[in-house]
C-alpha cells in the first residue's frame, strides 16, 4: 500500500448527487472517509444507498458534484484495484465451486500476501464446502463465499451493500470482525445497512441519506 498522507482523506464527496430521469435519487451528499475509518450509510428503502455505493464503485456515472480519491478526482485508473465492491448480486457463478470462484477473483484482482484460497474458505466458515457448486449452498453460505473475497483480495476501500443480509449471528460477528481488522490495518469501509450493528472499535461514522 502506498504510504497515505493522513491529512488527505481517502475518499471525499462534495455535493454529490445522482439524477435518474432528471429526478435526484438522493440529496447532495458531503462526506469524507479517511484511512482506518468505517462509515455506515443509513437510510430507508429507496433512499439511494445502493446507488451511492454503485457510484463510488465507478459503475454509475457521477450525476452532479465531485468525488475525490486521495485528493485527486476519482477516475477509473486512479483507484484501480483499491476498491472492492460487494453488491446485492454476489458475483458468484452458480455452476462453479467457491474455490473456483475465488481462484478467478484472485486471477483478476491479485491476492493478498500469504493467503491461500483454502485457508480463506476455512476462515469464513465454508470448510467442507470448498468444492460444492455454489448453486447447492444455502443463501447464508453463498453470502459467506462472496465475503471470502474480502479476505483474499487486496483492497483499501470496501464498499459493502447489506453485508449482514442472510447471515446468522456467527456470520454477523464474523463480518464485524473482518471490518475491525480491515480498519485497524489502515483500510476503510463503507457499509450500508438498515439494521443496527455492533461495532467494537468505537462508534462508526454515519452517512445519513435524506429522501
Amino acid at each position, binding site marked *: 500500500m502506498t504510504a497515505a498522507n493522513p491529512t488527505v482523506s481517502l475518499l471525499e464527496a462534495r455535493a454529490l448527487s445522482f439524477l*435518474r*430521469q*432528471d*429526478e435526484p435519487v438522493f440529496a447532495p451528499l458531503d462526506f469524507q472517509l479517511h484511512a482506518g475509518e468505517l462509515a455506515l450509510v443509513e437510510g430507508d428503502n429507496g433512499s439511494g444507498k445502493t446507488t451511492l455505493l454503485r457510484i463510488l464503485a465507478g459503475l454509475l*456515472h457521477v450525476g452532479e458534484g465531485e468525488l475525490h480519491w486521495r485528493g485527486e478526482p476519482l477516475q477509473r485508473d486512479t483507484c484501480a484495484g483499491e476498491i472492492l465492491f460487494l453488491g446485492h448480486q454476489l458475483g458468484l457463478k452458480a455452476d462453479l465451486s467457491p474455490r473456483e470462484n475465488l481462484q478467478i477473483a484472485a486471477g483478476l484482482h491479485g491476492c493478498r500476501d500469504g493467503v491461500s484460497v483454502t485457508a480463506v474458505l476455512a476462515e469464513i466458515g465454508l470448510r467442507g464446502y470448498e468444492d460444492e457448486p455454489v448453486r447447492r449452498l444455502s443463501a447464508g453460505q453463498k453470502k459467506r463465499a462472496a465475503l471470502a473475497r474480502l479476505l483474499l483480495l487486496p483492497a483499501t476501500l470496501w464498499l459493502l451493500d447489506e453485508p449482514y443480509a442472510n447471515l446468522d449471528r456467527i456470520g454477523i460477528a464474523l463480518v464485524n470482525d473482518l471490518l475491525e481488522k480491515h480498519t485497524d490495518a489502515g483500510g476503510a469501509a463503507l457499509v450500508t445497512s438498515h439494521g443496527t450493528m455492533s461495532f467494537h472499535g468505537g462508534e462508526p461514522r454515519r452517512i445519513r441519506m435524506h429522501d
Partner: protein
Amino acid sequence: MSNWIPLWLHKLGSPPTFYRFAGTLQPWAMTLALLLGAIALYGGLVLAPADYQQGDAYRIIFIHVPSAEMSMFIYAVMGVAAFIALVWRIKLAEVVAMESAPIGAAFTFITLITGSLWGKPMWGTWWTWDARLTSELVLLFLYLGVIGLYHAFEDRRQGARAAAFLAIIGIINVPIVHFSVNWWNTLHQGSTINVFGQSKMSWDMLWPLLTMMLATKFYYAASLFRRVRTDLLALEGGKDWVRKIAEDEAKS
C-alpha cells in the same frame, strides 16, 4: 473536457434555450419547405419536359433523389449528434440524434419505394441487388435498429447513449456494405443493371430537383425542431421551465 466546447454551444445546448430557439425557427423552416416544395413540384411536374428516353416516368426523380440524399444526410447528422452525445454527454445532442432517426427512416423508406416504382417501368423489375439499393436497404435496417434499441431501454437517456453507439457503428458499416455488394456484383455478372443512365440533365430538369433538395432540408429542420421540442418537454418534465409551459398552454 467540457471546457472544449465553445460557450455559445453550451448555451444553445441548454434545453430551455433550444426550446425557444427551435420554436421561433420552426414555422419559418416549415413555410420555406412548403414554398420551395410547391415551386419544385410545379417545375418538375408541369414545366419540365418529358425525358426523351424515359418519358414521364423520370418525374419520380424529383422526390426519389432528394429523399435518397436526405436519408444519408440525416444519418450523417445523427452520427455527429451521436458522437457529441457520447463524448460530452449533452442531453440536446442525444435528443437530436434520436429524433433524427424516425425522419431518416421515413426518407429511406420513401427512397426504397419510389425507387422501386421507378425501377419497374425502366428496368422491368421492382428490385435488383445493386450496391446502391442494398446499401439503402441496410441503411433502413440501421435506422430501425437505432429506433428499436432506443425504445428497448427503460431509462431514456441510457437508451439514447446505447442507440447513439449503434449509429456510430453503422456509419462504418454502410460504405463497407456498398463496397462488398459492388464486389459481389462483379462476381455475379449476370444480374447487374446500369441503374442510372448516363444522360446529362438539362437545366429545366435540374432546377426543380435542386429546389426539392433544398425543400426537403428545410422540411427536415422543421420536423426535427418540432420533435426535439416535444422530446425536451417529456425529458425535462420535472423542471420549472417545462411546468410553466404546461401551465401556459392549459390557459390558452
